[in-house]
Each structure stands twice: as structure tokens, then as C-alpha cells.
């Protein structure tokens, strides 16, 4: 149908960041999310910011895609900044707006906290920008392997995720088709009272659910006919490869963390 329909925000590419093992990316981001909270002076923030910006630049993802990922949180970033500026009353008075005094401590605090936010969002969106959803699924399956010992259904979870990924576009196409069919019979989804609009959505949801259940039933049968009997003894076509590149990135990241510990107060 339309080529614009892509799940997630993945931007295809062949950069270093794209080629990293998704497990490496997830691990590093996970650690990054924690160490961001350890930064407490200009130098430690600089180190983390440089790391995040360098990752972004090496990924060669066009800036507008990165900014698009940030849009929903701009508000939050600015809000936290203002909040700190208003609440904190430390240091000297820098300037006054009307009768309200802005302290240097408030500016610094506000700046530091919004910077944390910004870095967190930047780095996590870099994961989804450079990794396909199916790669993330594979990585999660592989990283959760130890949980199999406590009977956690790791394989089933991963299969569920990949089947959802497979069917999201199909169901979207179908929603589109049904809503056009309903619209052509005079159903109006866009105007009118909220109650009316909710009522208009019902004839859209019902056929969608009915067809989704039918699909699930047929799919289960097709899977069984093709010899699916659970994760036991299954091999995989897609494989995750831990390469020298990953080792390099880990070493680099260890230096970043060491740098952080030396610079923070």
C-alpha cells in the first residue's frame, strides 16, 4: 500500500551504530540510563553529552529524525527547567522578571536536570532509530535466556512480539479499508459530539476484532501444519553476532564511565 508505513522509527543505514549487535546497544543504553544520574558537574555532563552526540553523529541518522523522536518530550524538558528555576532559591540573584527573582542555583539545577532528560531521550531513541524491531526482539529473546530456568516463556514471548510486528501493518491496512467502507455508508468518525464519535467507532472495531480472531485461528493452524511445536529443538535463521566492533565499543564505554567517576565531585 503506502511506503510510509513503517513500524517504529527505524532509519535504514550501515553505520557503526547500525552494525552493532543489538544486545550491545541495549546493554550500553541500560547502563547509560543509570550513570546519567551520577553526573553532577560541568565536566561529567560534558563527557556524557560528548558520548551521546558522537554516537548520534556516527549513526548518520539525519537530524530531523532525531528531533522528531524528541518532539513529544520537549514540553517535559522545558517544564522541568522552569520548575527548577522557580523553586530553587540558592546562589545569587541573576536577574528579575517583574517581581520574581531568578537565582543562579535555580538556573544551574534546571539546566542540569533538563540535560539529563535530553540525554536519556536522545540515547534511547538512537536505539530505535538504528535497530529494527525484529532485531530488538531477537536481542530480548537472547538476553532473557537465563529466565528460561525459572520457566519464563522466553521463546513464546519473542514469537508473540514478532507475530505482532508481522500483523500490525496488515491490521492497519484492514482498519483503513473498513473505515473507508463505513465512511462510504455515511458513518462520520471526525465530527460531532464525543459520544457520537465513540458510537461511530463501534462498527469499525467489531469487524476488525472478528477478522483478527479468524486470522489468529488460521495462523495457528498454518503454523502447526508447518511443524511448529514450541521452542524446543528449534534453530534460527536470523542470528546475532558479537563482533570485534562490539568489544571496541564496550572498551570505549568503560573509558566514558571511568572518566565520569574521575570528574564528578
Amino acid at each position: 500500500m503506502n511506503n510510509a508505513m513503517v513500524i517504529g522509527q527505524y532509519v535504514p543505514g550501515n553505520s557503526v551504530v547500525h552494525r552493532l549487535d543489538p544486545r550491545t546497544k541495549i546493554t550500553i543504553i541500560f547502563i547509560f540510563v543509570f550513570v546519567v544520574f551520577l553526573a553532577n558537574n560541568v565536566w561529567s555532563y560534558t563527557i556524557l553529552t560528548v558520548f551521546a552526540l558522537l554516537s548520534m553523529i556516527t549513526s548518520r541518522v539525519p537530524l530531523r529524525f532525531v528531533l522528531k523522536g524528541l518532539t513529544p518530550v520537549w514540553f517535559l524538558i522545558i517544564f522541568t527547567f522552569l520548575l527548577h528555576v522557580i523553586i530553587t532559591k540558592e546562589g545569587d540573584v541573576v536577574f528579575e522578571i517583574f517581581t520574581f527573582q531568578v537565582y543562579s542555583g535555580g538556573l544551574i539545577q534546571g539546566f542540569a536536570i533538563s540535560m539529563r532528560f535530553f540525554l536519556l531521550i536522545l540515547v534511547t531513541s538512537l536505539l530505535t532509530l538504528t535497530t529494527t524491531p525484529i532485531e530488538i526482539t531477537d536481542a530480548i529473546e537472547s538476553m532473557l535466556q537465563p529466565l528460561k530456568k525459572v520457566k519464563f516463556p522466553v521463546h513464546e514471548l519473542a514469537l508473540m512480539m514478532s507475530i505482532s510486528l508481522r500483523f500490525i501493518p496488515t491490521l492497519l491496512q484492514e482498519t483503513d479499508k473498513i473505515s473507508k467502507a463505513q465512511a462510504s455508508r455515511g458513518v462520520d468518525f471526525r465530527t460531532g459530539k464525543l459520544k457520537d464519535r465513540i458510537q461511530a467507532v463501534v462498527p469499525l472495531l467489531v469487524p476488525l476484532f472478528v477478522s483478527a480472531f479468524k486470522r489468529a485461528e488460521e495462523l495457528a493452524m498454518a503454523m502447526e501444519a508447518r511443524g511448529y511445536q514450541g521452542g524446543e529443538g528449534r534453530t534460527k535463521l536470523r542470528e546475532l553476532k558479537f563482533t570485534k566492533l562490539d568489544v571496541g565499543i564496550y572498551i570505549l564505554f568503560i573509558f566514558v564511565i571511568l572518566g565520569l567517576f574521575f570528574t564528578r565531585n
Partner: protein
Amino acid sequence: MSSNEKLVEFRNVSFRYGAEQPWVLKNCSFEIDREEWVAIIGHNGSGKSTIAKLMNGLLFPQEGEIYVAGKKVQEDTIWDVRKDVGMVFQNPDNQFVGTTVQDDVAFGMENRGFPREEMLQRLDDVLHAVGMVDYRLTEPHRLSGGQKQRIAIASVLAVSPKVLILDEATAMLDPRGRRDIMQTVAHLQANKDVSLLTITHDLQEIVQADRVIVMNEGQVWDESHPRELFSKQDDLLAIGLDVPFIASLAKALKQTGIPITKEPLNHEELLEELWTLHSRT
């Protein structure tokens, strides 16, 4: 295993979906040979899909026995049987499991624990066989119905089944998609060591088969070569099957006194009959 053993055997099979429900299959017996192409036709609800599901153990008969490659189909043999019986269903979307073409084709091989190297090799082979090598990384929503069905066929072929069942695999396709699939299938039949069972209610699709089984109300109503079958037009119409245009045209010609000896299966054959007519009379 003796070489003249049948690949698939149905022996007096009766089946119903529940104790309270009517019998869907009544005492059915038939066989499929190695490398044979058998077509099953019949009106809606005549039990065709039920036959397919019985053949790979998705359902079990209440009476009678089913053998596939010498093994009786029952609870403890179904995984072996499913290796031998590949099935392509009607809806192209609802049997596509993978997020891309290559993932979908690999699905059956992964289930059987094929080593990765072999998967890659076979992946290449079967995509060539169905003419879809350029689509390895394509997602299903970017494929046409006919292309998806070709992938479904490739997925099944990848595990080298002994018999390939197409259950109305062309029913949801446009005429061009249909022709495509039938060509792919005919090509496979000629080149691979596989038996074919095509289920359809479109008589147009049986002309290439070696043998046709006609189902009516859960019973085997007739078994014959497509050519013989086309000469039984009135009976076919009586059980609700549409006769292809060429067959009715040939019949009309015969009625006006033109001596047509061989029941034509397609345009070319009828043309052949007609233009050689003069030299015979």
C-alpha cells in the same frame, strides 16, 4: 518400503466434527501415487478441506485409516507425517508467519531444527523455484496476494515434503495471480520429486492434473481423467459444478453435428480438433 506402495491412502474414512454433527466424510477411499498430480473438486462444504486436514493430522478420522508414505496418521506420528505433507491454505495473509519473506520461508525449517547453513542453501533453492529470489527481505504487506501464495509454496517446499496440498490456494487471487500460481505449480510438478493435491472448485484448474477426484456430499462421487470428466457435463452441473467454457463449446459443436473425438481441455486442443477436421472427413 516397496516402490509400488501408494504415497497417500484413505481407507474407508468417515469423519464428523462432533458427535452431534452430521458426517462430513462418509466412507471415503482413494489413493495418491508418487509424483502424481491429483485434483479434488466439489461444491462448497463437500468435505474437501476436511480431507486435507485429515491428511496431515490436523484432524483425525472417527472411522477408517489414513496412511502417508507407509505411516498411519495418528497422534504419535503427526510430526513425521507433517514432514511429508506440506499444505498451502486459501488466505495468503493468514499463513504468513515471518516478518520478511526469508523469515517466513525459514519458519518450517527452523521448526525442524535445520542447521543454519542448510537453511540458507534451501532458501535460495526454493525462492528460485517459485521465482521470488529478488524479494528475500520484503515484508508481507508489500507483496501481492499471488506473491504471498508463491512464498507460501516456497515455505512448504523448503522442507522437501513428499506431497504438496494446495487447498484453494488461488481462490482469493485475481485471474493473473491464479495463472501465475498454476504455472509455478505445474513447473514444480515437472521438476521436483513431489506429488500434488490441488483442491479447487474451479474446473479450469484441473486440466493439468493426472487424475480428478470429484467429491459430493462427503463421498467420492467420481474418479477420472480430466478429459473424461469434461464429457460428463450434465452430471457435473447437477452437483453444482460449473463446466469450463471450452467444454460446453465442444459439447454444443458436437450437438450441431461436428464430430469431435477427443474432449478438448483448452483452446489449443479444440483448435487442433477443428482445423484437422477436414483432413479426417
